[in-house]
């Protein structure tokens, strides 16, 4: 008598049901990954547009900023699709699938904003055209999607999380420290100072946070090195008397 004729431990219905649930999850994950892939593909053209900022003097940046802003806006339909599909599930069930791409998008937005982009936001009385501004988490969420909330805590909805925003700021610091050197190469001796002040301000803001041993903590530990890199650039300029005279 073989064991297959015996009714035993495993009720096949149990595993049929488990498999069904696993399959349902797999379908959801696949659908989300597809959208996220699309978002990632489109973000590459934004990255290409933004990379020109390292090679073009700040005076002639306007067209680059315009192109970058347009490119970012082209990512928004894919983002809307993501929000629409992801909203059918608890937010934190699948957020690992898109978190990195959202961080990248937020970085594109804050970097573009720092360079003077996204000057006129709907709902804002006056534009913030200035170079060196930091778009707040709410401003970024507005740009990403008209109604997207930032930092939710009372409803289970799609939103921009604090962590994603902070990761994007850390990327911004890294990008700006690179921009500081490249500005000098392009003959712009003023921007490194501006970047240095900005990173110092962000650094002191990050010091307010009690970060635990996580990815944010590890990355934010790196700010001081970036800060020093930029300070070294400013030092080099000062030493050689290349800084524009303070008024």
């Amino acid at each position, binding site marked *: *008598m*073989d064991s297959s004729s*015996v009714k035993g431990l495993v009720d096949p219905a149990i595993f049929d049901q488990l498999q069904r*649930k696993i399959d349902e999850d797999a379908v959801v994950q696949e659908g989300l990954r597809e959208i996220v892939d699309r978002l990632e593909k489109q973000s590459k053209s934004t990255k290409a547009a933004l990379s020109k900022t390292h090679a073009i003097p700040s005076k002639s940046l306007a067209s680059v900023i315009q192109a970058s802003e347009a490119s970012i806006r082209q990512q928004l339909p894919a983002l809307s699709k993501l929000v629409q599909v992801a909203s059918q599930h*608890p937010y934190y069930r699948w957020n690992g699938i898109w978190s990195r791409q959202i961080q990248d998008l937020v970085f594109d937005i804050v970097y573009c904003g720092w360079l003077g982009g996204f000057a006129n936001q709907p709902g804002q009385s006056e534009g913030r055209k*200035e170079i060196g501004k930091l778009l707040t988490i709410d401003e970024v969420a507005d740009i990403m999607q008209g109604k997207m909330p930032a930092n939710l805590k009372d409803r289970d909805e799609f939103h921009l999380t604090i962590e994603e925003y902070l990761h994007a700021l850390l990327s911004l610091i890294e990008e700006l420290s690179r921009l500081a050197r490249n500005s000098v190469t392009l003959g712009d001796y003023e921007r490194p100072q501006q970047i240095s002040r*900005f990173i110092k301000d962000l650094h*002191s*803001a990050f010091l*307010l946070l009690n970060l635990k041993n996580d990815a944010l903590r590890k990355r934010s530990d790196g700010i001081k090195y970036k800060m020093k890199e930029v300070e070294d650039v400013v030092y080099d300029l000062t030493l050689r008397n290349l800084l524009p005279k303070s008024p």
Partner: protein
Amino acid sequence: MSNKRSRDEAGMDSTSDGPFQSMFETFRVELDEHHARRERVIKASRDVTAASKKIIFSLQRTRELDQPISPPIKKTIDPHLDNIKAQYNGICSDLQGLNAYRYQSNISGGHQEFMEALSFQYYLENQALIPYETAVSSLNSLVEGANKITLTVDDYILGIFDMVGELMRFCITAMASTGKLPARSKPRRSTSKNTLQHSDRMDVDDGAGDDVGDNEQEGNVLSDLRQLRVALEALDVPRKSWLENQVRKKMGVMQTCVEKVEKSLYGLVVRGAERPTGWMPDINEAERLENRG
């Protein structure tokens, strides 16, 4: 340095504290709450894990299958179950609404270990695998109030993987002390007093069950283990998913556990004839025996 002096003209709404302080102060409050919740969940998960291990340890003293856990063993289990109950109630409010899945990776370990204990006890009492719904309702029967704790299919499945190891230990000990594989202690029909719906279904077709006690191949733990192994191996998990990653880690251990019982049984059959009743080669000896011969 000149950049210090020109700081106030930086085109930002600088205050003496720096321009971003107020936004970051909001972040700090939120992140502090988040970290506090996460730490509570992590601690509860650890405590649930420890208590579940103690329950499993007590359950391993069981010798009979398909019967309620004996009162002395139950007495040692109950305090740990109370502890688990207290832990789950302590963090239940941290796992609601938006946060239902937020701390999933932090609570997963505790859930899995508790599933291991729960499914092991269920098996000892019913000689059957606990269905997912029963596991969910057992977990939530510990939670007071209207809130529920989410138990994912993933955690349930991973708990079952680990339970195979407990069945292996149970088999080996039973074989060592009784000289044979644990099997159903009585014909299936007499279990109808059992209140669990699941066992009702299993009682319906019982033609093969009558001569169970005589046939070692039937209704014993090894045949259950093999069925479970086949069913777990057959699960088709999504590629590149967290579950796939975890299942890959546990699959080999699970298979080894089944094989250890098979090797032990082999040792029992090969050497049993020349050994006094009650003597039992340990696992390593069974392996040596196999390698040699």
